[in-house]
């Protein structure tokens, strides 16, 4: 790896720049307890992260990213507001042969600030854009908060909204559920047969006839879901115009200013997105004030949905075709609530990969 010194130097330069921007350097362990990460990301992370076993501490993971340990440290004993930066290796398993590294440096910058989220979003983006200026990396931004607000505003049952929100970060599954809830896809044959069977008797009688109760999932759990299925079968489909707006939102790609105009145009039909669209407008204003050309900055509403699941608002990335993202980041307010044991703080941040950056220097 003859590139290594250049990559280290690049990392050091970015780390210094983040400190100059007011961030306090923080350290994080390389070995992290696996349990927290598995609970957050689910089993999928096992395919991405190295898991090992410690005789005393149980399952441990080689740090797959810094966000979780940095948030945990902040929630435990951080100042409020706070800005942090870090520099270190992260480890990701590669499931395919090739030259993608399984160990690489990340340099990150995170802002925990309650005062003005739009300002903090713009601060992070403008800082990254400045550091990446003069490279081939192209910026793109998104906003998962608008999509989540649209789902919350749907005229349908709380159960269906919860099912959609749970899968916001799994686009294929989200789409499948939306197709079914809006009547675009027929009820699958297996589900129709199941409903028919559930209609033939009480859940308790059907369970007794099906076999002995085994396992932790109790009769009450089964009966509850059976009732939910029957109730859901009687729920009317999400109205076509409302569903159409959501499909439109999922595919929305336009320069940021034009995207805002479009969103303003559909807000009267989907009033629940108004606060999220206002946030988007405020962010663009803050970006403009920092000299970002928002008339040309590409916007994709769903950017960041397929990465590790925690972004719930602003997202951004700097990309070069054919390479991993040079930089990526976003807002993850909900994650701080999950890790904060009852407390939370709005948070936004991102990382740069120095080893990709040295490849894309113009």
């Amino acid at each position, binding site marked *: 790896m003859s590139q290594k010194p250049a990559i280290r130097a690049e990392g050091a330069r970015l780390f210094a720049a983040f400190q100059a921007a007011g961030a306090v350097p923080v350290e994080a362990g390389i070995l992290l307890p696996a349990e927290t990460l*598995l*609970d957050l990301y*689910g*089993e*999928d992370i*096992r*395919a991405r992260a190295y898991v090992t076993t410690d005789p005393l501490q149980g399952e441990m993971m080689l740090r797959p990213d810094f966000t979780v340990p940095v948030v945990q440290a902040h929630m435990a004993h951080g100042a409020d507001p706070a800005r942090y930066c870090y520099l270190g290796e992260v480890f990701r398993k*590669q*499931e*395919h*042969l090739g030259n993608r590294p399984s160990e690489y440096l990340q340099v990150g910058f995170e802002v925990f600030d309650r005062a003005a989220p739009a300002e903090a979003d713009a601060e992070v983006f403008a800082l990254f854009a400045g550091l990446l200026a003069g490279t081939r990396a192209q910026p793109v931004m998104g906003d998962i908060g608008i999509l989540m607000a649209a789902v919350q505003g749907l005229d349908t049952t709380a159960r269906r909204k919860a*099912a959609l929100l*749970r*899968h916001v970060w*799994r686009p*294929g*599954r*989200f789409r*499948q559920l939306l197709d079914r809830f809006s009547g675009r896809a027929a009820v*699958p044959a*297996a*589900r129709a*047969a*199941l409903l028919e*069977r*559930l209609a033939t008797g009480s*859940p308790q009688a*059907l*369970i007794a006839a*099906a*076999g*002995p*109760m*085994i*396992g*932790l*999932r109790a*009769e009450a*759990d*089964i009966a*509850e*879901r*059976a009732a939910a*299925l029957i109730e859901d079968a009687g729920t009317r489909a999400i109205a076509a115009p409302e569903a159409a707006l959501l499909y439109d939102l999922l595919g929305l790609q336009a320069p940021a200013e034009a995207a805002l105009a479009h969103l303003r145009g559909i807000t009267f039909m989907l009033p629940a997105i108004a606060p999220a669209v206002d946030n988007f407008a405020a962010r663009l204003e803050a970006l403009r004030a920092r000299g970002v050309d928002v008339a040309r900055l590409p916007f994709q509403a769903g950017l960041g949905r397929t990465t590790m699941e925690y972004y719930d608002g602003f997202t951004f990335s700097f990309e070069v075709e054919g390479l991993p993202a040079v930089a990526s980041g976003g807002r993850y307010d909900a994650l701080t609530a999950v890790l904060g044991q009852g407390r939370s703080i709005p948070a936004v941040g991102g990382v740069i990969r120095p080893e990709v950056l040295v490849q894309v220097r113009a």
Partner: protein
Amino acid sequence: MIKIGVPSKGRLMEQTFEWFSARGLKMRKSGSEREYSGHVAAEGVELVLLSAGEIPRELAAGRIDLGVTGSDLVRDKLADWQVQVSEVAALGFGHADLIIAVPACWIDVDTLDDLDAAAAAFRVRHGHRLRIATKYHRLVRDFLTGYGVADYQLVDSQGATEATVKNLTAEAIADITSSGETLKANHLKVLSDSLILQSQAMLFRSALSTGPELDALIRRLSGG
């Protein structure tokens, strides 16, 4: 010397011996009944008896040139398996389906969609993710990720997997089954859309192994 890896015991070993013998390559165990050594009646060919689960790794490393094992094991244990090994012949036995099964008393769960919904509710109620016992970690995880199932965890089970639900160490299982009788006897049912893989015994060639002798042997085996 061409090294052929063959499962070291049971029906799979016997059927593999028969398959090779029918193609003019007589194989038998040598030494005592309990000794793991074998003999093949051919010049320049060596028989290596191995656990079926280790054969994929040995092929990938090139320590054996040919190997017989289940297609399920190759796909589960080797990343980008097509690059590391190639299929020479399907042997016509060892058929089994890798599926997901849940307790038969789960009258509300017939599909992956149901399993996903049940897992969400289970986690809320019981405080941990719904556990699926399996030894096929990669295949099962890829399959569930592909569909978009969340809130589950895989727990390792290297044997008697069907008993894990009753023993309260898992809520569901992912395992291979041929007749389905063991599942039924343990009060489990197969999810209708959970066929992860149809497996059978295959002869594989290591991508690292080349040479005219090996090519000739393969022609003889696949022509017979």
